[in-house]
């Protein structure tokens, strides 16, 4: 017979766990299965093809472009937004004139829907009369089609993502900075340690758990945040801004090739899984928790 506590506990967790499994674990499993079958077309049922979809993906140049774009996007947005977030937190943690205003300014992008600000950024990037071309014009620069040029389209997407995320991460750094015992700073002042030395040897190590938390979020967002791509470039020009999740969306819901979309999703899931394992396995060991 089951212990009373056991069935009580299961009764408490079951509603949440059932929903969670039904819409996270179950779709992950069906996606893996779908990736082994063809896309059903009309009356033709899906047919088992083994790893054929993966072979097709391997031969798909757009997939490699998306993968490369996503790597660039991740390697640019993650460090940039995390470092900026730390700088912002350090800035508003001091007695800065107009501190509440500055803090609010940093944080506003977090509150705005990406889809809405994408519209505004779209205007900033407009050739000739957009903000960037106007600034360049002051310095004698010419007309530039920021989103239409394959060389600048992805950097533009990266800029928008960094702008959107930095303030959000700042909050976590700020929380950690304010939780730090002030006597550390006092002791270091008495010892005559330089600010840089104190930052490097005391602040930064104490911020490691926060950094890990922020990094995990930044990594997830580097693969999840594609709203602005949908609005601003549709993955163009010539797939220069196609990211993995955007390609999944395009494949699954514009071309309606669900089998290939499922195959792509499996690749993305494997990537996220590996990154999670790396972060917690390797980085996690080097972090000192309280």
């Amino acid at each position, binding site marked *: 017979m089951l212990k009373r506590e056991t069935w009580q506990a299961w009764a408490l967790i079951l509603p949440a766990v059932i*929903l969670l499994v039904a*819409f996270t674990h179950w779709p992950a499993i069906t*996606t893996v299965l779908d990736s082994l079958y063809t896309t059903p077309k009309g009356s033709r049922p899906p047919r088992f093809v083994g790893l054929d979809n993966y072979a097709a993906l391997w031969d798909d140049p757009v997939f490699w472009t998306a993968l490369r774009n996503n790597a660039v996007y991740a390697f640019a947005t993650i460090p940039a937004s995390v470092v900026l977030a730390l700088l912002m937190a350090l800035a508003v943690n001091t007695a800065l*004139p107009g501190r509440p205003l500055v803090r609010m300014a940093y944080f506003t992008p977090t509150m705005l829907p990406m*889809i809405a600000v994408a519209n505004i950024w779209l205007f900033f990037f407009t050739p000739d009369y957009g903000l960037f071309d106007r600034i360049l014009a002051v310095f004698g620069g010419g007309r530039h089609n920021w989103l239409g040029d394959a060389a600048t389209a992805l950097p533009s997407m990266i800029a928008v993502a960094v702008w959107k995320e930095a303030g959000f991460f700042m909050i976590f750094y700020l929380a950690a900075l304010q939780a730090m015992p002030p006597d550390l700073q006092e002791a270091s002042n008495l010892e005559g340690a330089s600010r840089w030395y104190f930052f490097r040897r005391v602040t930064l190590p104490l911020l490691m758990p926060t950094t890990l938390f922020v990094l995990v979020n930044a990594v997830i967002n580097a693969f999840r945040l594609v709203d602005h791509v*949908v609005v601003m470039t549709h993955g163009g020009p010539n797939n220069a801004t196609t990211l993995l999740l955007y390609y999944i969306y395009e494949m699954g819901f514009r071309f309606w090739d669900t089998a290939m979309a499922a195959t792509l999703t499996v690749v993305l899931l494997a990537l996220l899984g590996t990154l999670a394992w790396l972060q917690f396995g390797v980085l996690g060991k080097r972090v000192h928790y309280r």
Partner: protein
Amino acid sequence: MKIATRSLEILGAWMLALIWVLPLLYAVWTAFHAPAYATHFDLTAPLTLQNFVNAWEAAPFARYFLNTTILVSLILVVQFVLCTPAAFAFARMNFPGRDVVFGLVLLQLMIMPDVLLVGNYRSMAQLGLVDSILAIALPYLGSAFGIFLLRQIFRSVPQELDDAARLEGSSLLGRLWRVYVPLARPTYIAYGLVSISYHWNNFLWPLVITNSVSTRPLTVGLAVFASTDQGIDWSIITASTLMTSAPLLVAFLLFQRQFVQSFMRAGIR
């Protein structure tokens, strides 16, 4: 020397702040002026609300507002109701399978429903729920983030309080409701704010799963509106953009302190 460095730092912080609010400032400027001033800055330009009127009439924004409100409240209420007991069980009860199940729950922190568009769309099609507000909400109702956050705070509740309530004859749910939930209030506020802003702003999944005016949330409505109807009328687009973001932005401005503080409290422990 020290003062010079400090001034430079302050200047840098302010410049960064300016860059960070620039898109919002621009949107406010354009939305409240006639289209002629969209690219032409003149402090004496007359203010107008016409852009908001035009935007409001050009698309069913009232309906979109209603849809988003229903969606966000539905998610928030169900998340609270489901995550609370689950978090309590994970925090304070011993049962076989607890750690395995908790590990499975945490998996969702890394593999969020946002990337499972294809699989979830399939499930919704099988359930006959495509193009419904419930379908937008369903993947987010069992929230690992919520369970994790509440579990952390429940674990910090002193065991003596629990024992005292038990001695007074409180049932399991009674203790949860009268001891744990009140003590976790700041966490609920923080989680609520995160949940509301996340789902108010969420876009890709609602875009995929909805295809009619009666179900579309604001974000999808705005995207449809800005891409098809308007071409390049920046005044109307920025007006509708501001309308879409306004409720969250106003709430944030009003409760800024609380927001930031509760965020910090809930941040990481």
